[in-house]
């Protein structure tokens, strides 16, 4: 392996006014992970560098950080796979969290949001018999088998686009955890959980950008868990939000026309909301003038729309 230049994010709040990059250059041993390289720096080049690590086996979740701008567990990232064409590797702390020092982020907000979704069972039935555990069948566990693999490393939170623009958003890790308990057959508070999760900052504020699915070092796929929460909420008739109406109106329009008609979707999704509609009016008018929105055109439909309508009718109940 050739020399690699590591550009490492440094920041000591006691002495530094602002963060900077420090460069370390050496030739890592064949097969080194990025964590091996950080350890080499700390043990041989500069013992002031601060970062979290522990198990080195992608189980403890301590060593999530951004490599070339994207969150990874550095203990399972081979350095040879991330060297950029110019021979550099850039290492930053996870995103969407304040930095305490160098590569160490403050995970306080992460844990607060995790606690907010009540990540524990709330059974409403007594256990099968006195002094006995609540039992669970393997089929029932499979409903959230993937979500249960979360090691709370914060990689998904780091790269979440919604969180970057809206600090109130619960974020992928907490919402995946919320699904894990909402889907647990031993839990008795699914409806109450979902009622809280449809509020602002909850399941409808995800943009579905797939960053969390891509970045998760396990198999949680948080965005898919958020979609399952949405399906649950709609099944429980929790439909009084713009997000929920957007989905039901969208599905209804496609079920009738085979294609989305964008002239119908926003008006019906917003419900009775004169302020928002007025806010959209100037852009809508401009779009009409440019021929992007064509109000006089007959409703858009695909050819042979009856077949789409039949499929929609047959499957409306979700079977």
């Amino acid at each position, binding site marked *: 392996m050739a020399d690699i230049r590591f550009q490492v994010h440094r920041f000591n709040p006691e002495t530094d006014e602002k963060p900077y990059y420090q460069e370390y250059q050496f030739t890592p041993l064949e097969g080194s992970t990025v964590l091996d390289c950080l350890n080499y720096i700390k043990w041989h080049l500069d013992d002031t560098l601060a970062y979290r690590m522990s198990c080195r086996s992608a189980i403890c979740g301590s060593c999530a950080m951004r490599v070339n701008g994207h969150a990874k567990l550095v203990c399972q990232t081979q350095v040879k796979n991330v060297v950029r064409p110019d021979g550099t590797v850039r290492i930053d702390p996870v995103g969407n969290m304040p930095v305490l020092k160098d590569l160490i982020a403050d995970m306080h907000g992460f844990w607060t949001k995790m606690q907010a979704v009540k990540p524990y069972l709330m059974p409403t039935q007594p256990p099968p018999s006195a002094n006995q555990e609540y039992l669970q069948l393997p089929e029932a566990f499979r409903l959230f088998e993937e979500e249960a693999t979360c090691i709370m490393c914060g990689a998904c939170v780091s790269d979440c686009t919604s969180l970057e623009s*809206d600090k109130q958003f619960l974020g992928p890790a907490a919402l995946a955890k919320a699904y894990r308990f909402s889907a647990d057959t031993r839990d008795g508070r699914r409806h109450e959980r979902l009622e809280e999760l449809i509020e602002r900052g909850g399941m409808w504020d995800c943009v579905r950008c797939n*960053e969390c*699915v891509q970045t998760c070092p396990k198999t949680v796929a948080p965005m898919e868990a958020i*979609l399952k929460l949405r399906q649950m909420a709609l099944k429980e008739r929790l439909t009084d939000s713009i997000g929920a109406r957007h989905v039901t109106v969208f599905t209804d329009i496609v079920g009738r026309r085979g294609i989305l008609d964008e002239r119908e979707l926003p008006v019906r999704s917003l419900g009775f909301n004169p302020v928002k509609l007025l806010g959209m009016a100037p852009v809508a008018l401009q779009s009409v003038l*440019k021929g*992007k929105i064509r109000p006089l055109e007959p409703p858009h439909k695909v050819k042979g729309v009856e077949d789409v309508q*039949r499929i929609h009718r*047959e499957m409306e109940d979700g079977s």
Partner: protein
Amino acid sequence: MKYAYFPGCVARGNCPELNSATLAIAPLLGLELVELAEAPCCGAGVINSQNPVLADTYNAKTFALAEEQGLNVMTVCSTCIGSLRKSNKRLQGQSAYLEQVNQHLRPSGREYHGNVDVTHLLYVLINDVGLDSLRSMVKRPLQGLRCAPFYGCFILRPSEVMGLDDPEHPTSLERVIEALGGKPIDYWHKTRCCGFPITLENEAASFKMAGAAIGEAKDLGAECMVTPCPLCHMNLDMQQPRIPRHTGRTYNMPVIHLPQLVGLALGLDPKQLGLHKHIMDTSAVVSRVVAH
């Protein structure tokens, strides 16, 4: 080169210029497109929030229509390609599930056998047309026009479903821009979300996302943004006048659909490409390229 063409709802709705630009460049590229007139909406990941099996069934119908003609599917939308490929992976991966879905196609005499692949114009340019060949077709080089590529989420992620480019550090759009004589701008937001899916639900967050991307592109000297996704186009172009109230900044950033950029370089009339139909004025881009 012959594909079953899936324009998607937006190219037939709010971005008609995307459809006309695609149809205008296709013959120049030697690309024959057979439009799937009966194909329903891909579900856009939205129908999945209610009824994922319904979305997969709509998409199985699309695949069956293409399969009947022995063709693969080409889209011009990052959201469509992502939704279609996700459905296809589920349908191809489990024969019991494919059978369950086929039960809803059979009443109209159709069945999907799992033999269709889904691609996007962007990857057709690279893998079928080829960059060298594309370069040789250029009649009106882009004169080093500084273009900020903006991918759109689903065309890259998750790579388990997409796998057509590096999801974190993609190069496809950059290579096409270069082949056409433009200069790609490298910036962090090029792979981020435009915010479109939550425009109605959470306008402030949505427009901050779009503003962050446009702002970074502008700071790095981009003269325009280029996107293979009409949903991104809606948030970046159509909604651009509404972004400043959330970010305190105006941008005046033209946003070009991928086939429009190709068409410009291949010498087509900017009007035919619908470049006058955008909300943000594209005349600076057009005159920069056409004046030469």
